[in-house]
């Protein structure tokens, strides 16, 4: 039931435009006719119940999966079907919901790998990585192997590594999971800072509603692979179908 297949316009200049995107696995429509856009310099929240297709949508945008139909435009050019590394080069950074640290490398070296994407050599990359670790509060753990980090720290490391590639658009997949409410607020402040000061556009999947509500300029609700609602956080909580399918059932805030 596609309530809204029309473009979800957010602001004037769109960094990301997703048009009629579709992906199915063995006949199951994980993502079905999804269209939306993300304005430059905004923070957009993507919410919806488990299995709604949020992570699949991320994988399509990040190039980890190729779409069956539809198109993705980034900064004005078509990018659908590109490889993940090409997406990163264009300026799309991502984290993984199931964290994928380079377990045998130190926390610092994990971030250096990302920083090498833009840095001309290892020395500059290391400087850049040190700065990002400080920003995310991981500097005291930089010489530990990534395998030694707790889950919330691993989530931070995911963000640090993605940030090191200097993305224009950052895709965050449930980076708040497992954090205490105060930690969530701290992390949200860090993200807002990145958005305001460094101009990083953020598209985030999040179940922690208080964070989404506080952080996002705009929220998109996905259900059974289709967009069933969108708007500002204040508008979203008043849409009856959104409340029925997601918020009312599993409000975690």
């Amino acid at each position, binding site marked *: 039931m596609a309530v809204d297949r029309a473009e979800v316009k957010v602001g004037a200049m769109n960094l990301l435009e997703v048009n009629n995107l579709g992906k199915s696995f063995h006949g199951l429509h994980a993502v079905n006719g999804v269209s939306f856009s993300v304005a430059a310099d905004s923070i957009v929240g993507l919410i919806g119940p488990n299995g709604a297709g949020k992570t699949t949508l991320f994988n399509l945008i*990040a190039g*980890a999966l190729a779409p069956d139909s539809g198109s993705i435009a980034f900064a004005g050019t078509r990018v659908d079907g590109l*490889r*993940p*590394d090409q997406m*990163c*080069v264009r300026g799309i*950074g*991502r984290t*993984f919901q199931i964290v*994928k*640290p*380079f*377990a*045998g*490398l130190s926390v610092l*070296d994990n971030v*250096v*790998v*990302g920083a*090498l*994407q833009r840095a001309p*050599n*290892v020395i500059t990359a290391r400087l850049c990585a040190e700065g990002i670790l400080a920003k995310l509060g991981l500097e005291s753990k930089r010489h530990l192997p990534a395998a030694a980090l707790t889950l919330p720290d691993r989530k931070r490391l995911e963000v640090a*590594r*993605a940030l*090191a*590639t200097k993305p224009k658009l950052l895709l965050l997949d449930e980076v708040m999971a497992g954090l205490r409410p105060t930690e969530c607020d701290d992390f949200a402040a860090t993200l807002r800072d990145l958005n305001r000061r460094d101009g990083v556009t953020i598209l985030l999947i999040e179940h922690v509603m208080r964070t989404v509500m506080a952080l996002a300029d705009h929220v998109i609700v996905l259900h059974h692979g289709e967009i069933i609602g969108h708007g500002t956080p204040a508008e979203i909580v008043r849409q009856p179908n959104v409340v029925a399918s997601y918020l009312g059932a599993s409000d975690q805030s």
Partner: protein
Amino acid sequence: MNRRASFLLALLAVTLISLPAFANNYFLSLATFFLLFAYTGQAWNIMMGFAGQLSLGHALYLGVGAYTAGALYFHYGLSPWIGVWLAIVACIALGAFMGALAFRCDISGVYFTLLTIAFAEFARIGFDHFAWVGGSAGLFLKVAQQNHIDWLNLRGPPAMYYYVVLILAALAFAASAWLLRQRPGFYWQAIRENEEAARSLGIDSFRWKIFAVITSAAMTAVAGVFLAFYYNNLFPEQIFSINRSVEMILGPVIGGLGTLFGPLVGAALMIVATEGATELVDALGWNIPGVKQLIYGVILFAVIVYLPHGVWPSIARKLKLER
């Protein structure tokens, strides 16, 4: 590497450089094999230890390298100093072909390893029927007087071969150390640890895996050329044998995968274990066939069970050789 490690490395270098002055020919041949294994181990370690791509078919590059330079010398008298470059080119081409085939078709893990074995076996069977290089009857290079050094054709006494392989091992160590600290080292390790995450950080994993394979293949080709001129005879059954491939990986596996000193320490242990087993059997006067291999196997088994990350990491920790 800290001060202590640098000091030990310098001590090792001085010992190795002065070795021919006091070692007899037998001991020198053992040392030559130690350095050759250290060298091939370093080459294999780039592919598996750094980039996480397990090859059990490195005999392919050893054999093709040996036969390329050996046959060109045998037929045309081409100097090994030119032959080695052709051997490198041949092995880079082979490695790139196999890598492209595997990585384009998403052949990874154990299936990739099977492919490396298949390539080496193909080569063994192919060379068995390759009349120009003598087929299964072998290729024999002219042996010159031992006391006279002929640098151009790499003929000379054992000490000359020893110094050649010493330089090779030192260069391979330096190259590995450099690569590990530069962009390729970071990218290879990222691919080894988690390829999907590596790709999301902008790493073209196809390109970098191919680069690991051809670097490793080119280095192994040089070892092949050395073997051809050291042994002076080549048989497909020997040089392309899977035993060769396994021999090459034992050093870095025992010593410590992905470490710089692992291949060196592992190669030394292998020689000590083999020789130790021989000495022990002789001393005890046992005349049982296979007992040497059994002792060797027990030593390997003990290392793998008690030091699963290799010998070097625990030595480094005990002697406080790391930061």
